[in-house]
């Protein structure tokens, strides 16, 4: 490939690119590879995949559009970017559904071969958008991607129908040129990925090179760009999605706890990738059962936990509904259990592939009776690793189910992750009970399954196979201590309080809430309180506010139940509290109830994450400033 360039190369500090095409066009693959090559190059990256719920909606229709947005920069970034500066649209439908998001003056690269009457019709265009003036204000590049790809791919010897399918590699090549990406990484990746189909490998390689060379030689583009590596903390990095990080976190947690990992799960979007990932790692002793339904998935995990495994079940909203009864049982049995809910748009089947944070109150209150469950939520894709370990720590130490609330955005989004040294991971080893712990009136030693540890209030974990500790547990109310079935009203009240106190007591054992307030806690007039995947957008929004010389504080909850013990104090230190959430105000409701604080909700339930500008705007309003005050957008990382 030629490296000499007649083009001028312009330096950019960051760029947001969105690849959009038909779901059959391979946009997720293209975007993922572009991200990976950029990360390896040293940029900071953040991604936002956006795909339809239908596996293959009719080709060329608006419903079938699949998109992948990636933000690359020469400094640390927090979000996949508010607005793409470049859109690659493989067909009219992709253009129509995505062009509205592009920044004014942005670049639109279209596969002009796909722009014909039939395609306009499918995309509900009444006229050709390339000629009817609707793209005025954008820099539009018309590239005949299909025909150029067909030409080179046919030379590789693939059938014409297959040749056309390499066009996403053409697009990848073109964008790789446009942003001066190294090519060797992608060529090597194509070679590995398509090793078993040499013809396809050859066609894709040729298409990729053709795209790259097209940029170089076609004189269509006046300039190309360079985004220099970011000054990231030294270390070994990998690109990771939230679901992979979660799966690896579970493996690491089981390893640190010296327990076998058992997953009972039923396939559901967007959680299935955790099942897929864990199923690969049998050499870690991971057992995965694809259960007959959601209830069986959690049931099997509870059975395995009784037997001394780290029992896990993974799901999303509708599955979480179905598991509620079993999670309530685990509360009563007081067995460790991890319930991973990758939240998606609800209610009911809702928006399976879109993100939302609307299961917080479900996690808190979906079980009948007084059935408290600790809840933790990751903030970024890579943070899922740490949170899986923290959830396991709480579960095994306190013998309780723990709910992890991730979401579709974290699950599929990717970011560079500085690998932790496994030697620094916490020690989660637990001791199973091996001795009797009670003496009957007649002096005989006995094992009582509900004798509690004074500090943690956890009951002993005595696994079958331990001689002398044979015991029965059950979902009926049991007598404090002996664990025998008991309908005694006073005992019931005691048990309800004990279970609640056990979970509430975890607050003593979790990190205090950190507050990012430059002047110290309470200095800024407004606190933005978030939880889960809103972290990036809030932190970026806060940066933007600060770039205007204004001050605002940010605190982000990882533990949602119990709350960190200083939360009340933190909230009390601020006059105004804003809680952005991808729901109608669930965390706000919880902090209002617990701390009588006048928290204001910023709600967004559009299936996509908050944009930094949306947070900024409301904070400015609360500060009495207006967004009319100009800042140099490009100077503020988001």
């Amino acid at each position, binding site marked *: 490939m030629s490296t000499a360039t007649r083009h001028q190369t312009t330096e950019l500090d960051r760029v947001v690119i969105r690849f959009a095409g038909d779901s059959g066009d391979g946009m997720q693959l293209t975007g993922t590879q572009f991200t990976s090559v950029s990360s390896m190059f040293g940029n900071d990256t953040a991604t936002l995949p956006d795909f339809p719920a239908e596996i293959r909606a009719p080709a060329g229709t608006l419903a079938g559009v699949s998109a992948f947005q990636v933000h690359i920069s020469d400094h640390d970034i927090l979000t996949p970017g508010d607005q793409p500066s470049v859109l690659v649209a493989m067909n009219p439908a992709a253009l129509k559904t995505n062009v509205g998001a592009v920044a004014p003056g942005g670049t639109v690269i279209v596969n002009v071969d796909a722009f014909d009457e039939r395609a306009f019709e499918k995309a509900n265009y009444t006229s050709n958008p390339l000629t009817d003036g609707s793209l005025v204000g954008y820099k539009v590049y018309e590239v005949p991607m299909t025909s150029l790809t067909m030409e080179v791919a046919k030379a590789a010897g693939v059938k014409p129908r297959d040749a056309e399918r390499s066009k996403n590699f053409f697009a990848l090549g073109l964008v790789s040129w446009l942003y001066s990406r190294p090519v060797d990484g992608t060529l090597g990746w194509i070679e590995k990925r398509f090793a078993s189909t040499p013809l396809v490998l050859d066609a894709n390689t040729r298409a990729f090179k053709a795209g790259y060379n097209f940029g170089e030689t076609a004189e269509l583009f006046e300039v190309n760009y360079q985004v220099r590596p970011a000054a990231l*903390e030294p270390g070994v990095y*990998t690109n990771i999605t939230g679901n992979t990080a979660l799966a690896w976190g579970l493996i690491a947690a089981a390893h640190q706890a010296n327990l076998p990992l058992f997953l009972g799960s039923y396939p559901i979007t967007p959680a299935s990738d955790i099942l897929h990932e864990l199923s690969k790692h049998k*050499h870690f002793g991971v057992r995965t059962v694809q259960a007959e339904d959601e209830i069986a998935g959690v049931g099997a995990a509870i059975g395995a936990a009784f037997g001394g495994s780290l029992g896990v079940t993974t799901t999303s909203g509708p599955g979480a509904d179905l598991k509620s009864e079993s999670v309530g049982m685990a509360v009563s049995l007081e067995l460790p259990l991890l319930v991973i809910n990758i939240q998606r748009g609800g209610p009911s089947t809702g928006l399976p592939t879109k993100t939302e944070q609307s299961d917080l109150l479900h996690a808190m209150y979906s079980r009948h009776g007084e059935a408290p469950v600790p809840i933790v939520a990751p903030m970024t894709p890579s943070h899922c690793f740490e949170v899986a370990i923290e959830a396991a720590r709480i579960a095994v130490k306190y013998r309780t189910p723990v709910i992890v609330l991730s979401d579709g955005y974290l699950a599929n989004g990717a970011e560079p992750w500085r690998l932790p040294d496994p030697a620094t991971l916490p020690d989660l080893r637990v001791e199973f009970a091996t001795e009797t712990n009670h003496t009957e009136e007649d002096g005989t030693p006995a094992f009582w399954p509900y004798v509690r540890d004074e500090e943690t209030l956890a009951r002993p974990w005595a696994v079958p196979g331990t001689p002398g500790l044979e015991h029965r547990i059950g979902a009926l109310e049991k007598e404090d201590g002996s664990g025998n079935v008991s309908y005694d009203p006073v005992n019931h009240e005691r048990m309800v309080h004990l279970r609640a106190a056990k979970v509430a007591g975890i607050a003593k054992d979790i990190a205090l809430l950190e507050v990012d307030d430059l002047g110290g806690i309470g200095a800024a007039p407004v606190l933005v309180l978030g939880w889960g995947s809103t972290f990036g957008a809030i932190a970026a929004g806060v940066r933007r506010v600060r770039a205007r010389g204004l001050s605002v504080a940010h605190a982000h909850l990882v533990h949602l139940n119990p709350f960190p013990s200083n939360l009340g104090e933190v909230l009390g230190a601020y006059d105004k509290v804003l809680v952005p959430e991808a729901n109608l105000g669930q965390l706000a409701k919880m902090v209002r109830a617990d701390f009588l604080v006048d928290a204001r909700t910023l709600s967004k339930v559009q299936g996509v994450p908050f944009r930094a500008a949306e947070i900024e705007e409301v904070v400015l309003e609360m500060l009495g400033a207006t967004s009319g005050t100009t800042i140099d957008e490009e100077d503020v990382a988001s």
Partner: protein
Amino acid sequence: MTDTQIPVTTRKDWTSDQEVRWCPGCGDYSILAALQMLMPDLGVRRENTVFVSGIGCAARLPYYMNTYGMHSIHGRAPAIATGLAVSRPDLDVWVITGDGDSLSIGGNHLIHALRRNVKITILLFNNQIYGLTKGQYSPTSEQGKVTKSTPFGSLDTPFNPVSLALGAEASFVARTHDMDRKHMQEMFRRAHDHNGAAFVEIYQNCNVFNDGAFEKITSKDARADNLIPLVHGEPIRFGAELEHGVVMEPDGRLRIAEVADVGEDALLVHDERRDEPGLAFQLSRLARGPYEPTPIGIFRAVERPEYGAAMTKQLLEANERRGPGDLTSLLASGGTWTVEA
């Protein structure tokens, strides 16, 4: 633990200190007794034995066994037992369930446990009624049954549990009844020794809400003419003088005939190991309900790969191929790059 001797035990060792709380006269008592008396003979340890149950009268049984046990929630015992048995192949896992528990609310778990062939022993106490909720009809109640919830008679066609288990690919299917301890014990022993999911239907009398449901076939004087014992390798015949037998018609249907009429050689010879389940299914349909000659015994006992062992094998193979899991290489498995200081 395999090298040390299994301690000698008696029924008392297997009996917990909990007071048994079934209604006096309930068939559950004789099933519990049969089980507690059998356990010392099974060559197993108490600490390695787990009884898992769901909800219903039968589901109380684990509390009465001095072993590990879990009285779980309605219908879910086969799922819970699956997780336990798969993750702990060293344990003996029993599921105690009833007709409402595993044929109604937990129907899905039952059929999938049987299909997977996880090594669990499932004892289904079939009393054809909901006892614990005080007398509604169950999925095995005869059509037209008048109960509190069906004052004008039930409309549903009942399940035949043995047919259902056979249809769910069960590798071991048997039927017994609460009036015959020896027969129960023989079925429980065979089910326990089976390497896979074993299903035993027990006709159990609920003397409070459905008294006498099986009387027509299980009462002492009715048995000879109404219980058809299935014995592997033997012609299928019954009656005080073994005067009745089962024959196959030229069109493939099964029929009860008089041995005197058809001759001994015409009798169907029972083969529990027959791979093809069709004949076992036909036998399960010989009686329309427990009021006419009904086969009891082992309908099917075939060998199929056991799910937990197959999973353990995959784990060992992966370990051999890739070596024991190593966190450092796991974290690097997606490709890495280094940012220098």
